[in-house]
């Protein structure tokens, strides 16, 4: 039995408010914001919390997302715990400092309220924004529910600020379905979060402080000498921080579960995979409908399971390969497009993980939920059916667009 410990209050709220509560409970010193659909209500909640004295953070309403992340870079190098949230075009505009954040090893937490990016012009949910920046070096965690959003934000700080990680974390939740969808959410007690996070120390490695003068990020590289080797040392450090994060993410989730009674799967969640012959791979809020579809398929005698990805960066290669090693066919459902491979981005990642196995398992890419479209139980049933046929020897086609004929 999961006994809920130390819950201060139960509220009903949407995913954006849950994220704001997660941030509030993590006690950042500095919050910078710029509104963008579907993130806007999240930053309004932050502003409200600060105005009401629930949060003691300084609120910086700046002139655009480029500066949102830039002021937080400065604040973090001065020693602040920082938080922000953005989406789609905001993320695109933020990209220049975003690109720099992991290299500076700044342990920031930024929520991405995922959305399809212009063009075609669209302001609704999809994961094209977050998937497009997957190679930058941020840790990416995707949430399935409002409660998971709230809980993952303190967990994200714990991971980011771990001295062997020191990397920024995006806590992602689906625009529309999670951002505006309302659910029951337990607010943990502040003291629980405080003792979980402990003392912050975000700039022990690089700081801008007259009491510890140093050059932050001097020019590195060049044609020869120590330059390129120094650069490699920094880059390798980022990679090793990412790999270390896999264990730290597991530990942090376990610690959080012990303190709050809520145990979230840290890297991947396996749903009815024990005897599964066919698997779906999902990510984010779509997983709820996928679980329903799997339950129905099971009633019809189909041995189907789900591997849900929570931590997408670093990609849990071994876990995913192991979880999928026994099935005869795999259907990966994406909420974004990989233009270069004509498939979904998660699909391509899964293929890479499968190469670690001695066997070749056929797999197919399904793309749905673009531009705010719902991925329904029927869509998943369709995906399960197609994956079953794949298991039976039918050739794979690339990709299946689930909402094409809605």
């Amino acid at each position, binding site marked *: 039995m999961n006994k809920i410990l130390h819950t201060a209050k139960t509220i009903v709220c*949407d995913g954006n408010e849950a994220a704001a509560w997660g941030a509030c409970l993590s006690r950042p*010193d*500095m919050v*910078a914001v710029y509104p963008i659909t579907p993130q806007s*209500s999240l930053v*309004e*909640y932050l502003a*409200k919390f600060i105005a009401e004295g629930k949060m003691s953070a*300084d609120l*910086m*309403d*700046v*002139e*655009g997302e*480029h*500066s949102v992340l*830039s*002021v*937080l*870079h*400065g*604040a*973090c*190098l*001065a*020693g*602040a715990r920082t938080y922000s949230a953005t989406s789609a075009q905001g993320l695109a505009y933020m990209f*220049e*400092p975003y690109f*720099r954040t992991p290299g500076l090893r700044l342990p920031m937490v930024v929520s991405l309220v995922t959305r399809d990016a212009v063009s075609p012009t669209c302001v609704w949910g999809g994961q094209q924004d977050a998937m497009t920046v997957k190679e930058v070096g941020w840790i990416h965690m995707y949430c399935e529910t409002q409660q998971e959003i709230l809980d993952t934000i303190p967990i994200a700080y714990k991971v980011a600020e771990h001295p062997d990680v020191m990397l920024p974390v995006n806590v992602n939740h689906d625009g529309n379905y999670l951002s*505006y969808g309302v659910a029951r959410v337990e607010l943990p007690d502040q003291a629980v979060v405080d003792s979980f996070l402990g003392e912050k120390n975000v700039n022990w490695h690089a*700081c*801008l*402080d*007259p009491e*510890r*003068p*140093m*050059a*932050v*990020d*001097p*020019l*590195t*590289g*060049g044609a020869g*000498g*120590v*330059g390129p080797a*120094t650069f490699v040392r920094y880059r390798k450090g980022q990679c090793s921080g990412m790999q270390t994060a896999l264990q730290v993410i597991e530990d942090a989730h376990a610690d959080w579960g012990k303190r709050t009674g809520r145990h979230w799967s840290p890297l991947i969640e396996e749903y009815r995979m024990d005897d599964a012959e066919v698997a779906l791979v999902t990510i984010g809020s779509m997983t709820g409908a996928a679980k329903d579809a799997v339950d129905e398929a099971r009633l019809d005698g189909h041995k189907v399971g789900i591997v849900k990805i929570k931590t997408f960066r670093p990609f849990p290669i071994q876990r995913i390969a192991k979880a999928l090693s026994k099935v005869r066919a795999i259907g990966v459902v994406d909420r974004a497009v990989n233009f270069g491979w004509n498939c979904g981005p998660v699909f391509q990642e899964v293929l890479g993980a499968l190469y670690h196995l001695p066997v070749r398992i056929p797999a197919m890419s399904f793309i749905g939920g673009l531009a705010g479209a719902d991925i329904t139980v029927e869509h998943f049933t369709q995906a399960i059916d197609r994956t079953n046929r794949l298991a039976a020897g039918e050739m794979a086609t690339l990709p299946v667009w689930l909402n094409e004929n809605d």
Partner: protein
Amino acid sequence: MGAAFDTIAFKASLCDGCGDCMTTCAEVKQGASRIDIVPGATENAFELAICRQCGDPKCAMVCPSGALAKDGGSGVIGWDSDKCVDCLLCTAGCAFGGIAVDPSVARVAKCDQCGGDPACVKSCPTGALEFRKAGSLYREYGDKEDLFVPGLSGCLGCNSELIMRHAMRKIGRNAVLATPPGCIPGMGSVGYNGKTGTKVPVFHPLLTNTASMLAGIRRYYDKIGRKDIVVMALAGDGGTADCGFHAVSGAAERGEKILYICVDNEGYMNTGMQRSGTTPYGSWTSTTPVGEHMKGKTQDAKNLPMIMAAHKCRYVATASTGYMEDLYDKLDRAIEASFEGFAYLHIYSPCPTGWRIPSNKVIDACRMSVETNFVTLWEYTPATGIRFTRSPDNALPITAYVKMIGKYRHLSQEQLDHIQAKVDEQVALLRIMAAESPPPPPAHRPPAPLSAPAGSDSSQPSLRREISRN
């Protein structure tokens, strides 16, 4: 540090021979004038005879009674009337006409710089006479700690290094310094491969986010009570006026407590002299080249300091390394203002490499840019508005400046006329803004409170209701 002294400087090209300086001196000294304006080699040209306060004073060397001696503090050659035996040998010893007989008392008389505030300079209507206090500055700051590594690799003759070293000597170690990509970090201020180039915390922001990063630093230090740190940028014009302008404008609008120094060399000189938004009309740059179909830049420069004044910053000023006293005064005011709000200092700094100026002519070019009004020296505060710190009156024609600069070598008469017209236009606008002194503040009356309309619910609608309505 060695000795350096203030001096009265004479710009012959600005002198119209009015004689006001001599009249004033005679009045103040109650006798013959110790400054003499004499006809020069050509018509309407004048030369100056005045004591040079020589470092190796021949007057003192020939004096048999020890009545003349150089003062170690002020550098002035003092004359002791008690010791003087009126032999007049000194008048023969001086080659500059700097010491002469005052017929009214039949004794020698010479300039004593009025104790550091010479009356002749103040009376000069054309700006031909100036009292240069660089010597005092040198004495005051020469012993202060230099905060950069020796041997920054700036181009020969570049004034950026001068600006950097002077500014940081004044500001000291309790500072955080941003040097966005450009010549300033390019010459090694942030350092290479893990080694720093300065003794204060220093960093490369992105070219585009200098003011924002600084704002975040300042806000956090303010939040934790460390309010005495100078949070500052030494930035170039490109990152300030062009791609980083959003950050500068946003920080200024929010009143972030930052000292933002823009060193304007009129282009992206570090990357090979490409044009920027502050590159003046007609300039050759590597992206506005001169050929059959193109004759340099075809647009006028944007006037960034005026734009910043329009942001109602706590302090805005322009400065030139040709006028260090003025620059130093403004630096003081800008530092002070940066603890209260956004302080913006725009320093015009020629690029000898990119502008094609001999390295030994850079300061001359700075001074000429001001004397022709190509650069105007002014400052702004919300309380005082714009105020000239050097009069734009009696400016020389723009040609005097342009001909010193190789990047204008190709200019046609038409282009020159355009530049002159734009300079005149700019100065006219500044004059309008400067002449209109602000009205006295109104008798303070607190604004009426915003009362809620009768009968309405005064509580704010809840956010949740707002959202669900959407």
